[in-house]
């Protein structure tokens, strides 16, 4: 699993890790039932404290994205809402392409809807 963080930004590192994983769950890059790497291994590869990764995993659990099981680690749960969202976004993107609407306009539209 790939994780990219930027320790110099104001967003806490644990939140960045959680967001990075959440994005991959939403896009299907990380599949339902897949085990996330052991916190110790992910922390070692990123060069961060193991508690930072554990905190990220807890965030994901609180969001209902993963299940933390003793001995099995963090397991990705099926999130039907994420899948439904992905389908809706895919349809919007297809329609935008067909109508010749540039991606910037599509993103602006999504932002406007989200913030309204």
């Amino acid at each position, binding site marked *: *699993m790939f994780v*990219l963080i930027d320790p110099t930004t104001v967003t806490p590192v644990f939140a960045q890790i959680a967001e990075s994983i959440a994005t991959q769950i939403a896009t299907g890059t990380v599949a339902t039932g897949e085990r996330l*790497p052991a916190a110790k291994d992910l922390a070692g590869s990123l060069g961060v404290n193991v508690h930072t990764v554990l905190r990220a995993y807890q965030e994901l659990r609180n969001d209902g994205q993963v299940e933390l099981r003793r001995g099995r680690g963090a397991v990705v749960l099926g999130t039907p809402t994420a899948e439904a969202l992905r389908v809706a976004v895919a349809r919007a993107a297809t329609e935008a392409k067909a109508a010749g609407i540039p991606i910037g306009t599509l993103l602006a539209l999504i932002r406007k809807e989200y913030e309204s």
Partner: protein
Amino acid sequence: MSTRVVDHATARRAALVATIWVPLAIVVAAEIVVVGVGATGSSRLITHWGAGAVRTGPWWTYAVLVAAIGLPVIAIMGFFMVRATRMAGMNTWMPAIAVGITIFHAVGMGVGSVVLNASPLAPALPLAGGVVLAIAAALLTWWLLPREAPATEGVDAADALPVRSHEVAAWTGRVELPSWFIALIATAAGLLIVLGVSLVLTLGAHVWPIFLAPTLLLVVVLVTAQFVVTAGPGGFIVRSVVGWPYLRIPAESLAKAAVVAVDPMADFGGWGCRWVLGPTRKGRWGFVTRRGPGLEVFRRDGRSIVVTVDDPGTAAAVLETYATTQA
């Protein structure tokens, strides 16, 4: 070691001759001697030496034994060697083992037991002599085989990620044996242990060495069942889930990373945790559990590690990021 360096086709031919035709010639020659001695000597030969009375059998017992062991050994070693030599960078120890095994059973156990049958030196001399001859023949084969010229063209490194200097990219993956395979081995070892317990209960504690093989099997499976692979600013690490074996390439010795096509049999002579001399005649570790795309990570000195992880492209890109920024 032979200093003759030849191309892949010639090296392959020599290796196949040593694995198939040389053992076949040894078996045929041994059969001629066994049949010759057996047909002209006494019709019954000793087949079991023991503390008590010896047991005898018809002379052709040995002729059958030499063929019954020799031909399957040649068939199995030949089958694997034909597959293992399809690509560059073959092993030269497999032909050596084929010749060694054949010398041991055909010359030592077969010819030796027949020629020295009534001698007080049997069965010690045929056995010990067979072992010595087998090791000598194996070493000679290994020494005589021509060496394959190192592959000149290397693999292309992956593209680095567009990571900014204050960002940190990392990747983790796993190399796992299929769970059905682990279950199979664990069941087999479990059955052997149950059998061992029942034998200890009926025959006494002195049969304890019966536990050695299944215990060793369980330990090996446990240790090699799953490897954790990580890539990041610290470099590249392959580690068994139990902590050992552990291999690491620090970022400063990281030369390049690439996605390569892996065929465990052809590249490493089998599955699991392996070490071979690679196509460039540098040490190549393999943690390989399947065919298909894998990740190969090179040290600056040319040695490399191959792992059959999922998504090797991302892993290679992460490693390339740190290989280039550290250069």
